[in-house]
Each structure stands twice: as C-alpha cells, then as structure tokens.
C-alpha cells in the first residue's frame, strides 16, 4: 500500500477570548488509502476537510491523532487493522513506529519529502513571481538533495517537455504565462523528484474548461508514465468521475462513502452522495434531490451523523439532540399551532436528550408530534412525552454514531441505513 | 451585550500595559541613582552629620535600601495614592498632580478643538479628493496636504503667526487671553481661572462674553497649527481608503440598484472608508500630544506641553516624569476608546 491513513483526525484550536473557544474539527476519524499508480478522488464541498486531509497525508501539518502509514506492505497493514479491531495497542504502535510519517524526522523525513509532493489550486500564487520557471522547477530537486544544480538544470528541460511546454519557457517568469501554462509548470515542479505520491488540491478549479481538459489529460499521462499514486482533491464531481479509479466522498470532516468510481457514480448509497451527484447540473439520471440548508459549522458539528440535519432519509436515531428538536418544536408551536404555547412560555432544551415545553399539556404536545412527524423528521426521535416540571417533558431516544459499513465489493458507507443488525 | 464583554476584556488587557508604562517611568526615576532622588528632598545647605542623618532617615522613608522591585511597588502605591512627586519650574512649583490639574485643561481644550478641525475639514476633503480623483481640486488638495505633511510643526506655527498674526493682525498669537481684559476679574488670578481652569468655559460660566470671545480667538492659531500637521495624514488616508472602497463589489451593487451617487459616496462608501481612518486617529493623538509640546511653547500657551518644556529646561526631574506618565496614560486610554468605537462601527469585529 502506497499510503494509508488510519483514524486520522485534525482539530484546529481556535484562539481568542480568555478561555479559548474550542476547535474546528476539520478532519475527524478518517481512513483512506492510495495504492501505487492509482488515482483516488476526494470530493466534498468547501469546509468538508478535503484540503486538510491532503496536507495531513503529506505530513505538512501534524495530525491531532491517528496515523499516516507510508509504503507499508499489505500484510502489515492488514495486521495493523486486525490489531485495531482487537484494540491491541502494542502491535499497532509497533507497526506505526516504523511506517508512520508523523514519527519521522531529520534525514528520513527529507528522503520522504522527495517521494511525495503537492500541487495547489491557484496557479497565480503558488509560483514565486520573482523566480524564473527554471528556478521554480529546480528548487525541490536541489533542496531535497535529489540532484545537484547542473544535473537539475538539465532535468528541467526534460520535465518541460514532459508537461508539454517548449524548452525556452525555462527562462520565463510566471507572469508571462497563462493560467494553464503555469499549472503545467507547477506540475513539472511537483514531479521533478519522481515522487511516488502526489496530492493535487483543486488543480484545475481556477482554469477555464479548455485548459482544464488539457491539464487533466496531462495528469492521466503522467500517472501512466511514472506510476505515481495521485490523490485528487476537488469539489467538481465530474472531474473526479473522469479522472479517478476510486472515490472518497467527504462531508463535514468525515468520509461518508468510499469505493470504486463507476459504482459510486452510478449507484451512490449514502444520502449525501445521492444528493451531491444529483445536484451536478446537466445530470439527468434520477430525480434531483435538493438539500436544504448548508454544511454545518465545524466548531460544533451536529451530533451522531454530521449530515443528519439536512438528510432527506434521516431516521430517529441519526443524531437528533434536544437543541435541534426544541427549535423545531418551538417553531411549530409558535406558528402552525399558534396558541398552544402561552405568552412568555418557552421550549427549553434540558441536557442533550430532554426538552421542557413550559406550560403545555403533554396530551396536546403528543398530538402535535403525531401529526407533524411525517414532515418534521426531527420529531421522530421523541419517544415519550409526559407531564412534569410545570409543562410537558419531552424525551428523546439516544442517537447512534454511524461506523463504516461494507456494502458491495470494495465499498464502504458511513450511514446507519446500511448497518447490519 | 456582547459589546460589554468586549469592553471588559479590553480593560483587562489594559492592566499589563499600565504595569509596563509605570515600570518604565519608575525605571527612569531610578536611572540617576539614589542621590538624584534624595536631592529633591534634602536641603543642599546641610552638611556633616546632620546631612548624613537626614540621608539615612530619608533613605529608610523612601525605601531606597530595599531591592529595586520592592521599591517599584512602594513607588506604585504612592502614585496610586496621588503622590506623583514634586515639580519646580519658573511657571509652577508644587506637586505634580496639581500641575497636571492646572495645565491639562488648556492642552485638552486646544487638542480637542484641533481634533474637531481635523474631522470637520479632513473628512469632507478626503471624500472630495477621492470622488473627484485626478481633478484639479483633487490635485490641489493632494499637493497642499503633502506639503503640510512634510513641514515640521514649528514651521507651520511660525508661518501662521507671521501671516495671520503679524501681517494681517486678525488673530492673537501669545498666551490664553489679553491680560488687560482679565486684570480685574475676580475668578481669575495668577494666570489661572476658576473653577474649571479652562478660561473659555469659565468665562462663559461667569457670563463674561468679552473674555470668552478673546479666549476663543487665542485658541484658534495653536489649534489650527496642531490640526494642520495631522490633517494632511487624515486626508491622505481617507482618500486612499475611499478609493479602495469605491472599487468594491458592494459599491457596484449599490449603483446597480439605483442608489443616487451622493448616497453611494456618503452612505455606502464613507462608512466603510472611515474605519481605517479611525485607527489612524489613534496615531494622531500621539501626534497631537507631541505637537502640543512645540505649539504651546511657540504660542506661549500654558498647557502640559509648555510645562514639560519648562521642566526640561530646568532639570526638573519630577516634572519630566510626571508629564511622561500623563502622556502615556492619555495614549493608552485613547487607544482603548478608539478600539471600542471601532468595534461599534464595524459589525464584523468579533468580540
């Protein structure tokens, strides 16, 4: 296995205030794998944590917890996974200490840097404007000690040809190039040390479609020629669908679905993937699912499944908490069932799973819930309403946190619908 | 509500700043060694054992035999009690706090008047300059303000005195009032007016309009001098930020929805453009205070700056340190106030 992440988690601490304000849970508990010469797509909307994941895999930022195992033999990875399910910390530690990139430093890390690289979205800011193309492409070769100055200079010419640029471009400055040409230079730089793993972070998002098509074709050719494992991070599902062998779909810091491209695109299983694919303009397969609302704030993500507040197929145990249910209940009681809530009374969440409807009768509240359950899905999590504390006391059932469930060949989905009981 | 929490937090941050400021002033006090401190209190004519006895007594009393950081706390306690030491200059002898109470009001009145001039002249000119970019008017404003910006303040003062005071004879340029007018006024003696020590206000309180008018005339030149130097900066900053704001998408949208040009400038653009200028105003306060030292000297205007110059010229340690402390406090508190104003003006500030 070229690279495998296990339980990878990254929280960015927020500073400010006297006490601090918590953390952005950018990536939480993610497993991903990339094999030699494979193109793996990571799709997700802004804030889904896909870029952070890319940086974590390259060791550009240190994870809060979890491991990134590089170049690990299949059987050891299997052993690691077995140890993980058996909760055998010792074996896990043993394997991780040898293969995890987060444990490497100094010379080892430098050698590793040569074997993995990254290409960024913005062709305008990722190239040093004061350097000539030649210097830009040479830099990683020299700094990682892969080649000496003169050899590197010679190699630059070959690389330029490789990415379809004339040799004379070596003497140009970035501002003299078009967006597509710059992205070719960036690609030449990132493959200059012949890495075996390359992360592409939105490589074509800033480009026009005509230039995008050229770059994508080029990437495919480069992969063939050098057998580089590519991790392609993008919000554009069509691009992923054109490029990748396998796909991971991310939502709010988690991988919600992963598997071979063709089966995911033609038969998505996670409700989010279904909606995401149906939202692609011009896509005519199946009815369009329009999601309500927007991705959540990752400082305080929804409990249970992060997707549950927007999920069209949400169930009673997907993560509803008192705060969410109380909000919807209050909206109903103040709107559609106007009059049931007395002037000045409130709907107060008490703890995570209990709500007090002040001054209301349990019987009436029960009736509202019965009537609205069909439409207002959060109400389904209510299992009991009784009198108490000067009002109706509403109790919610405890939610479940979805794990990764294997469905078809090589496919995993993180959704309770697919949990085998 | 959240704003109050922000203010409270901002006040908490103030504490270390104040500690820093007082520590610097304290360090300056003690930089000259113990003898310099003692010299303030001991009669120079004493000699022999009497002198030694006095020295020993005072050393104990002033805790000069303690370690330096302990001395700092004794000193701080005294400062908090209001004992800021003594000043001895030709224009005033007495405690530093008294001196500040006497001189501060004059400085405040010309500084505030200058600040008013800066806003009233600066904002319209800055906006005008940006809106009529590259026009004759804009170029005139820019050349003038650049000229003023690069001119030292005493030169501006002298130029104004010569032009308006000496040749045109329209404005007085020395002191706070024509002494003949106040020679027989009961609420004014020894150059000090009562009760507020601001002559203009005191005259109004006592209904003496002639003195009030004269006092106001005396304020104009010093205030104008102070204002002109800073004004140039305000205009330049406002012009630049206004131009930047006028390029923003929301200005395009304002025009796209048919907002009349005047409202585009005065409402949509100006409120956003003023924000950086507010920050700049914090620096202008420093500029005003620095300027006050020169201006009050030139115009013979008895304010803090005038007293500071006198203290400097007379080796008056107490006066120098007292004014340093007071300048420091003013700067710290204006920056506090400006931060709060900024948070109030810009809804994006998270507090």
């Amino acid at each position: 296995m070229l690279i495998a992440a296990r339980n990878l988690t990254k929280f960015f601490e927020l500073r400010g205030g006297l006490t601090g304000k918590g953390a952005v849970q950018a990536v939480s508990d993610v497993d991903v794998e990339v094999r030699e010469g494979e193109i793996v797509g990571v799709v997700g909307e802004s804030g889904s944590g896909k870029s952070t994941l890319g940086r974590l895999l390259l060791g550009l930022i240190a994870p809060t917890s979890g491991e990134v195992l590089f170049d690990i033999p299949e059987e050891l990875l299997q052993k690691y996974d077995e140890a993980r399910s058996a909760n055998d910390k010792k074996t896990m530690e043993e394997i991780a200490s040898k293969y995890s990139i987060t444990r490497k430093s100094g010379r080892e890390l430098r050698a590793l840097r040569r074997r993995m690289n990254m290409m960024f979205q913005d062709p305008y800011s990722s190239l040093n404007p004061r350097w000539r193309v030649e210097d830009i492409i040479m830099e990683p070769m020299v700094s990682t000690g892969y080649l000496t100055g003169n050899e590197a200079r010679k190699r630059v010419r070959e690389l330029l040809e490789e990415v379809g640029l004339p040799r004379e471009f070596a003497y140009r400055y970035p501002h003299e190039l078009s967006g597509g040409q710059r992205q070719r230079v960036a690609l030449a730089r990132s493959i200059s040390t012949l890495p075996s793993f390359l992360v592409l972070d939105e490589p074509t998002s800033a480009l026009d479609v005509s230039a995008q098509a050229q770059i994508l074709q080029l990437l495919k050719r480069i992969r063939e020629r050098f057998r580089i494992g590519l991790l392609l991070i993008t919000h554009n599902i069509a691009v992923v669908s054109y490029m990748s062998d396998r796909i991971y779909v991310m939502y709010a810091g988690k991988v919600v679905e992963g598997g071979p491209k063709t089966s995911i695109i033609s038969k998505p299983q996670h409700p989010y993937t279904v909606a995401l694919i149906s939202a692609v303009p011009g896509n005519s397969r199946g009815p369009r699912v329009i999601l309500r609302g927007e991705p959540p704030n990752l400082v305080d993500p929804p409990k249970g499944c992060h997707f549950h507040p927007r999920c069209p197929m949400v169930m009673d145990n997907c993560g509803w908490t008192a705060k969410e249910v109380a909000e919807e209940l209050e909206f109903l009681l103040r709107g559609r069932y106007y009059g049931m809530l007395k002037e000045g009374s409130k709907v107060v969440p008490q703890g995570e799973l209990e709500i007090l409807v002040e001054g209301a009768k349990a019987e009436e509240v029960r009736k509202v819930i019965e009537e609205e359950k069909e439409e207002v899905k959060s109400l389904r999590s209510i299992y009991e309403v009784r009198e108490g504390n000067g009002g109706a006391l509403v109790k919610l059932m405890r939610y479940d946190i979805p794990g990764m469930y294997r469905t078809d060949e090589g496919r995993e989905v993180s959704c309770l619908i697919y949990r085998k009981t | 509500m959240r704003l109050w929490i922000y203010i409270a937090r901002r006040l908490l941050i103030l504490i270390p700043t104040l500690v820093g400021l007082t520590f610097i002033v304290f360090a300056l006090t003690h930089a000259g060694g113990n003898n310099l401190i003692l010299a303030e209190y001991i009669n120079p004519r004493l000699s022999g054992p009497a002198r030694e006895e006095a020295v020993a007594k005072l050393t104990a009393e002033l805790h000069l035999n303690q370690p330096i950081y302990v001395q700092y706390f004794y000193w701080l306690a005294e400062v908090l009690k209001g004992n800021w030491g003594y000043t001895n200059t030709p224009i005033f002898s007495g405690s530093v706090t008294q001196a500040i109470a006497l001189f501060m009001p004059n400085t405040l009145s010309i500084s505030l008047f200058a600040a008013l001039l800066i806003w009233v002249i600066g904002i319209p000119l800055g906006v005008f300059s940006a809106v009529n970019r590259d026009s004759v008017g804009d170029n005139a404003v820019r050349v003038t303000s650049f000229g003023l910006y690069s001119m030292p303040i005493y030169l501006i003062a002298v130029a104004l005195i010569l032009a308006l005071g000496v040749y045109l004879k329209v404005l007085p340029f020395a002191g706070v009032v024509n002494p003949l007018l106040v020679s027989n006024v009961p609420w004014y003696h020894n150059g000090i007016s009562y009760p507020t020590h601001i002559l203009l206000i005191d005259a109004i309180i006592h209904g003496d309009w002639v003195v009030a008018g004269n006092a106001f005339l005396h304020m104009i030149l010093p205030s104008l001098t102070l204002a002109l130097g800073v004004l140039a900066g305000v205009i330049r900053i406002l012009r630049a930020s206004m131009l930047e704001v006028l390029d923003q998408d929301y200005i395009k949208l304002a025009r796209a929805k048919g907002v009349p040009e005047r409202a585009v400038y005065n409402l949509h653009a100006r409120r956003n453009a003023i924000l950086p200028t507010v920050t700049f105003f914090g620096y202008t306060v420093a500029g005003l205070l620095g300027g006050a030292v020169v201006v009050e000297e030139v115009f013979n205007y008895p304010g803090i700056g005038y007293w500071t110059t006198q203290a400097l010229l007379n080796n008056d340690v107490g006066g120098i340190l007292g004014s340093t402390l007071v300048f420091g406090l003013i700067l710290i508190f204006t920056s506090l106030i400006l931060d709060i104003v900024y948070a109030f003006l810009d809804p994006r500030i998270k507090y």
Partner: protein
Amino acid sequence: MEYALSVKDLRVSFYTRRGVFKALNGVNLELRRGEVLGVAGESGSGKSTTGLAIMGLLPRNAKVSSGSVLFDGRDLLAPLTSIRKFSTGRNESAIRKLHRELAPIRGKRISMVFQEPMTSLNPVLQVGYQIAETLVIHNPSLLASRKLARVRATREDTTALLKVIKENEGSETAVREFVESRHLKGLEEQALFIWRRNDINELRKERLILDLCCEKVGSTTKRLLESLEGGMGITKAPVLSRLLRRVLFKEGYRKAVEFLSTLGVPNPEKVVQMYPHELSGGMRQRIVIAIALINNPDVVIMDEPTSAVDVTVQAQILELVKDLKRRVNSSFIFISHDLSVLGEVSDRIAIMYGGRVVEVGPKEIVLKAPRHPYTTMLINAIPTLDGREIRGIEGEAPDMRNPPPGCIFNNRCPFAMDKCRKEEPPSYKVSEDHYVACFLQGGK
C-alpha cells in the same frame, strides 16, 4: 419582434498600463421578453464586460468606442459613446453623468446579481436596510400606501377582507378588487403574503390578517405619507425627510421579510436584522437576488450567480431561478462559464469568444448540435459524470491587446482557411433562431 433589451455592435476596450485590451469586439445580443438568455464563455471572452456594460457599470478605464444598448427605446450608453478623444478624466465625468442618468432605471427596470455573494453586500449595513433601500429609492409610494392602508383600515375592513380571501381561496384578482373598492390599496400584498405562508396555521393567519388594521401614526407622518402616495416624491425638507425615511425604511423591512420568505429564506424576520458577515454564502446570494428582483424589473442580469457557492447550494439557487422564471415576468441574462449550469436554466444560449458572440441559438441546439468549431470543442472539453473522454482546446486564447485579423478563433481552429485569417465572419443564420459566426456555415 419586440425585445426587452438589445445590444448592438458593442465595442469596449480597457486602457491599462500594459496596453489597450480590446474586450468587446462587436457584440450583438437580443434579449426577448420573458426568456432566460444564457451567455457562456471562458475568462476573457467578454461575457462579464457585456453584463457590466448593459448596466453602465464599466470602470473608468473602459472606452466604449461604438455600439449601443437599446432599452425601452433609448440608448443607455449614449453618454459614453459620445466621447471622441479618450482620456480617463473625460471618461470619468461621462461615467458620472451616466450614473446620474441611469440611477432611476437601475434596480427598478434593470438590475444585476453579481458573482461574489461574499463581497457584494455592504458589510456595515443590515441586510434588511440594503433591501429596503431599493424600495425607498424606486417605489416609496408603494411603501406609503402599504403603511397608510393599515392606518386607514378598520377592524370591519379586515374582517371583510378575510372573508373575501377565504371565499375566493386566496385569488389575487378578487382580493385586489375588494381592496380597491375600499380604497385600501397596498393591503392586498400583505394579506396575501400572510395567507400563502405555510409555516403557521389558519388560526394564526386569520389573526394576522385581522390585525392589518387600526395602526396609529402621527399627523405629520400621515400627511407626509399621503403626499407621497399622491406621487409627490420624498420631501426635501430636512427634518421631515428624515422622519419620512424612517417610516419608509421600517415598512421596507416589512416588505423585505415578505419577499425573502418567498425566496425560501428561513426565519426572514431575523435575517433582515443581520449583517452580511453573519450569513452563509448561499443565503447572501438570495439576499442579492432579492435586491435585484424586489422591484419587478424588466431585465435581470445574473453574472455567475452560482460560481462561488458549493454544488448543493448551487442546486438550490438554480432551482430558485427556475422557479422565479415561472413566477415573475422579467427577462434574464444569465452569465456563466459553466455550460451545464446554463443548460439547466436557459431558453437560449449565446457562446462568446474573444469579445464576440460566435454562436447563439435555442439551448437544445447549441448544446446538442453546435455548429461553430469553438462551441463543439468547448463542449468536448467538459468532463461529465459518465466519464467520457474529453479533449482540450489546443493553443492559448489570443492576446486581446493585439487580436489576430479575421476570425478571432483562427489560431486555434482546426478548420481555419485563408479567408478566416483575413475577414471577420458575419453571423450566418443556419436554422430558425440559430446563428453562427463562421465561414464554414456560409459562403465559402
């Protein structure tokens, strides 16, 4: 045929330090009434410049060397084209004149939605204020009659009104007739809005409609509102105008709430009190759309309204645009670099390249059977979900400081002939409604 708006032979160039960029080189476009015209093109094709030019929002270094934007029988860009010798100073004063002339039209008859919802709202003004402002500027008499209607109406009036609504099941004409018969114009839209809400139950709706009455205002305010309703415009008297504006803005917030809720904004009462930075990108884009549409303009220009938002939010906005197209009778120009987005919303699509419209026709024909080589190649370059092979367009876009003579696409076109390098191809009609600017389609 009667057009909502037409652009004729528009030529615009930008004077920059690095040379003169010829952004538009003879753009011709007609917008029909009630249609959505999609304008597609890559960066530098001039699609955004076209939108800005129609609004008269060109920057001061833009020279309009020829052409016109015809709307309602007048040329909107006349002040700019009349400049003979270009200088930014002269242009600036012409642009200022243009702003003055167009202010009454902008936001009322033609309006625009910009690409970046993050930057196109004023950060220091409340969202409600920014919506209400368009109403106060262009339609103060409507606000006045809304307010006055509630002042004049008695409990008996609203009771009768409620009965009319219930009997006619919320029919607009019936309510309008009733309101006019009682001289309560302005009440109908408020009542109908309440009636059509689906977040509250019948009882509450009835209560709210009955409460549309018996409001009290000061006698001065009432007089001011009445003169405004009579078509006098907002008074210029200093204190009075302030007073009146306050009342109008308050009413504007009220209408903004109603309008936002029809755009699917949850909790509009709260949203109008917020500042832009408190809202998500999708929500802000709805606000910008609300500002553009609240005065029922004839023409709405949408410049990449979905390019800066996420896919799922983009789907929401596209759904909204489709819904608006059914509901309102405005005509839309929808500018986007994404042909599949245009395929979703447009009736006709115009393809731009190098500051010219190279192909225009009905959506299905342009997307399925394009005739211009550029269009064909552009469509072949777009990756799709079925993972078909894509092909990039070789070569780079021409340097617009010095565009090649003849057809502007000739340096990248596989079919380029000698003629293409000498003459500019005219627009050939290849079938009903379908025009292509390529010699392959016309006389060889």
